[in-house]
């Protein structure tokens, strides 16, 4: 059913209202601030908490990760694949650490679950690729954030 709207007598002659509307758009065109961000030159500033490309924190070139398998368990997209191994000093470490970037939904659960402060989500959001990309361990070990 159509709701009958109450309009003033003069509003019924659309003309005045239309002219007002035209003035509003013209004012916007002449004086308003542009909302466009011209991408390659200007970039949007995201918050520090932004969840972007992953990295694994390392101390003195050794990754913090102990291959505890908490992040692959919690990951809702099931996109983390870890093969665990043993170091000479009997410490567990990931031989393989892969994240399928197309399946990842950047929820940040892995970051929250990690007991060793190892996996982190950086601020980088330009991740376009030409093929299906799986982040390997070497790639993940690049320190691209300071969380």
């Amino acid at each position: 059913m159509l709701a009958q709207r109450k309009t003033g007598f003069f509003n019924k002659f659309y003309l005045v209202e239309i002219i007002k509307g035209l003035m509003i758009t013209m004012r916007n065109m002449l004086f308003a601030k542009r909302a466009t961000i011209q991408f390659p030159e200007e970039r949007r500033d995201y918050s520090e908490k932004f969840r972007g490309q992953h990295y694994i924190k390392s101390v003195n070139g050794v990754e913090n990760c102990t291959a505890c398998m908490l992040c692959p368990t919690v990951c809702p997209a099931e996109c983390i694949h870890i093969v665990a191994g043993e170091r000479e000093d009997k410490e567990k470490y990931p031989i393989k650490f892969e994240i399928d970037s197309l399946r990842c939904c950047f929820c940040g659960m892995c970051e929250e679950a990690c007991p060793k402060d190892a996996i982190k989500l950086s601020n980088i959001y330009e991740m376009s690729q030409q093929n299906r990309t799986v982040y390997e361990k070497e790639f993940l070990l690049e320190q691209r954030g300071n969380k």
Partner: protein
Amino acid sequence: MFLKIGIVLVGLLSVTPIMLFVERRGSALLQNRLGPNRFGPQGLLQSVLDVLKFIFKEDRAPGHVNKFYFSLAPLVVVVPALMTFAVIPFAGNDFIIANLDVGILYCFSIASLGVYGIIMAGWASNNKYSLLGSLRSSAQMISYELTLGLSIVGLIMIFQSVKLGDMVSAQGETLFSIGGIDVPKWGIFLQPVGFILFLVSSFAETNRLPFDLPEGEAELIAGYHLEYGSMRFALFMLAEFVSMTVASALLSTLFFGGWQYLPGFSWIAHLFSDGNIAVTYLVSTLLHGISFVIKIASFMWFFVWVRWTLPRFRFDQLMNFGWKVLLPLALLNVFVTGLLIYLGVL
């Protein structure tokens, strides 16, 4: 003759890329955006890319269409749109392709042929949205053509002619002058109501927002040109922009003195009139042409400006508005004008 046709044709065809640019950037600016500004200065060459894209795209017709009418329809839309300009004088009364006695009536009759193309396109596409779009467009065109025709009857009564050249010459006279400033006898001062009616119904005739129901993308996807691609679609677009130009040209010819000088131009013409007849003629023709182009351009901008300001009508509102508001107003306008002429005021 061929020179004039050449000028008009080149002008009308180059309107499309220019208007593509103006519409893109204009819409963006009106909406607080920037619009495409990368290719060429201020994105000026973007429309060249568009044209190239249209040319190199595969010209494909879907399997379920009626091939003959499907390919005929864009032509039927474009040709009348281009033909309408023939009776409009564009730079002095010598510059008119065909000085027909029926003048403005020719404009209306040819312009209304365009709707057949739209109906053909909708029917041949064999698609319910296209058909709905073309149905709407035929209903809309017929309703608003009445107002369009009636709104200038007042002018015809005043100028006693349907020849556009005569009308423009008559508009060169002075209506009255206040303190040394001559107010010319332009149609808008004689027929303000007629002007508004003509403006509104020419929006409807050219299928522009707020009257773009035939292609209302929210409910009909794209309306009658839904199945078209590549150059065939480009022809529809061309037709829309050309009919916009013709509408603007008619608006400026009938109500803003056509090729008559804009205020200030007669002074420039005076500077160059040094006795040499050829130079004087050339300069005045050029200035007349420039005045006319400026008038058309302002109306074109107005079309764009309105498009990005107003929302679309609902179909019943459109019909109500056409038949219950505009048509009685147009009739009343004719009656009042007749009365004023009888009383000797106009």
